[in-house]
């Protein structure tokens, strides 16, 4: 019986696809595809009972974001998850800097739950939404 929600240690890093997407343009499909994914370890996917390429809701101390769970190429250890850097990852990155200027981009706890039917917002949308700039 899979858990409804699991807690993982989140890191956000550059990937070459993210780099290519970024240079192609922040509003391009390339960028969207590269950054709206969360790399997970197969064991964690089993634990959560989530299939590859299913949308999940990732929640940290600062908020939630919807991304697509994928099985990682660059192997992670169980318990460690990775979302490529970008507005989606930063939707959940704690801004606390320990007075060093550097926020907590790597190594913060997140809860992950299946959100198969929830939509992944666009790059600009995810930020404007957070900033309350989208007229509802």
């Amino acid at each position, binding site marked *: 019986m899979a858990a409804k929600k699991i807690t993982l*240690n989140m*890191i956000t*890093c*550059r*990937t*070459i696809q993210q*780099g*290519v997407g*970024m*240079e*192609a*343009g*922040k*509003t391009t499909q390339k960028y969207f595809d590269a950054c709206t994914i969360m790399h997970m370890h197969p064991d964690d996917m089993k634990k959560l009972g989530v299939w590859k390429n299913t949308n999940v809701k990732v929640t940290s101390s*600062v*908020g939630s974001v919807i991304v697509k769970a994928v099985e990682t*190429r*660059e*192997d*992670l*250890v169980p318990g*460690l998850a*990775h979302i490529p*850097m*970008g*507005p989606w990852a*930063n*939707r*959940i*990155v*704690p*801004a*606390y*800097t*320990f*007075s*060093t*200027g*550097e*926020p*907590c*981009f*790597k*190594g913060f706890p997140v809860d992950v739950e299946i959100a198969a039917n929830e939509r992944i917002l666009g*790059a*600009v949308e995810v*930020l*404007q939404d*957070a*900033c*309350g*700039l*989208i*007229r509802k």
Partner: protein
Amino acid sequence: MPKEITDVICPFCGTLCDDLIITVSDDNKTILGCKNACAIGAEKFNHQRLPGRVKRPRMRQADGSYKEVSYDEAIDWTAKMLVKSRKTLMYGWASTSCQAMSIGHEIAEKVGGIVDNCATVCHGSSLIAIEDVGVPSCTLGEIKNRADRVIFWGCNPAHAHPRHMSRYSIFPRGFFTVKGHKGRKIYCVDCRYTDTAKCADEFIQVQQGFDYELLNAFRTAARGEVLPDTVGGVPKEKIYEIVEDLKSARFGIIFFGMGLTHTMGRNHNIDIAINLTRDMNDFTKFAIMAMRGHWNVTGSGQVLGWQYGFPYAVDLSRRDQARHQTGETTSVDLLNRSEVEACFYIATDPGAHFPVDAMISSSRKPTVTIDPHINCTTEISDLHIPVAMVGVETGGCAYRMDNVPIETRKVVEPPEGMLTDEELLTKINQRVDELLKAGA
């Protein structure tokens, strides 16, 4: 007749490859091809001719839509914002030329800005560490010509600096390294088995966030002291074995990246890695280098260095003194604490790369973003001023990750009537002077 431009510098990452060959149309307007660049660099040159590129400034309207305005209107609005604000965050600079930065600093000194660059969320930790303990380093050619031990610690050049391994660190044959890769032993220390780790002779998997402890263990082992059975998931036998191998190097180098700067302890992870490097110099020759990200983030640190004596987070808000305190005058802290009244972003995209809470704070203030393309930040700014792409549509000096400066090349003309960063900042500077004179 299309022509080839050689020795072109790639304006993407700190590797600053300077051997690209770009084919351009004979009217110097379009890039037709790009040789030698990595996937990311090639994409940057391709981007120049993407359809739908914004060619004039855009001002956000009450209904949230954007309306095209003239450069003059945009310059006037920006100058007025800067003169009015008591404290302005002037962040970015990593993707523009040193010449442009100089003009920006002159403006900041007049209007009371805080000049910060992308190191603030990247290698800022490394700069703090170097401020604290210095750094024994070298130019990239030294690695190619001499290094026989190469350690990638918390960095992933296979993804972030794609040509680094072939140009400098793993594969090239140099004067004293005629065997190339065969003559080098490559280590990779990371919490993930990255694509860089796959190129290494040995991968050491460290528990995420335990780099400081592991580096402390390396130093302790180097002094022949006892260790706990495992440190950060690495057995002590392995640690002793590696340390002995490093001591036997002729020339060793540690490359490190976000894996150290972003994780728990931040600057301390680099600080102690530098100290390990220093220790190794008692046995042989060792160097350490930060894998700087943006192609000219290093340049911003250099120009701020010779003009004010600090590498980033330079607070000129009092106008009669320059101050620097990471944790106070750094962008994310300023935004978290809402300590600035206006935001001026140039050649960067904090919207995509700052934590959301910082950007929420930013979005509540008057904001101008100067960037060649639409990005996340432009879409939460009051004003977006497009400019020519530096290193593609205009030249200018840039500093490589090892602080070697290289003058970038212009390969094509910018879109009709589009200003460069230098031209735009010069006009803003003039407008600021007029306003200050008028006592606005």
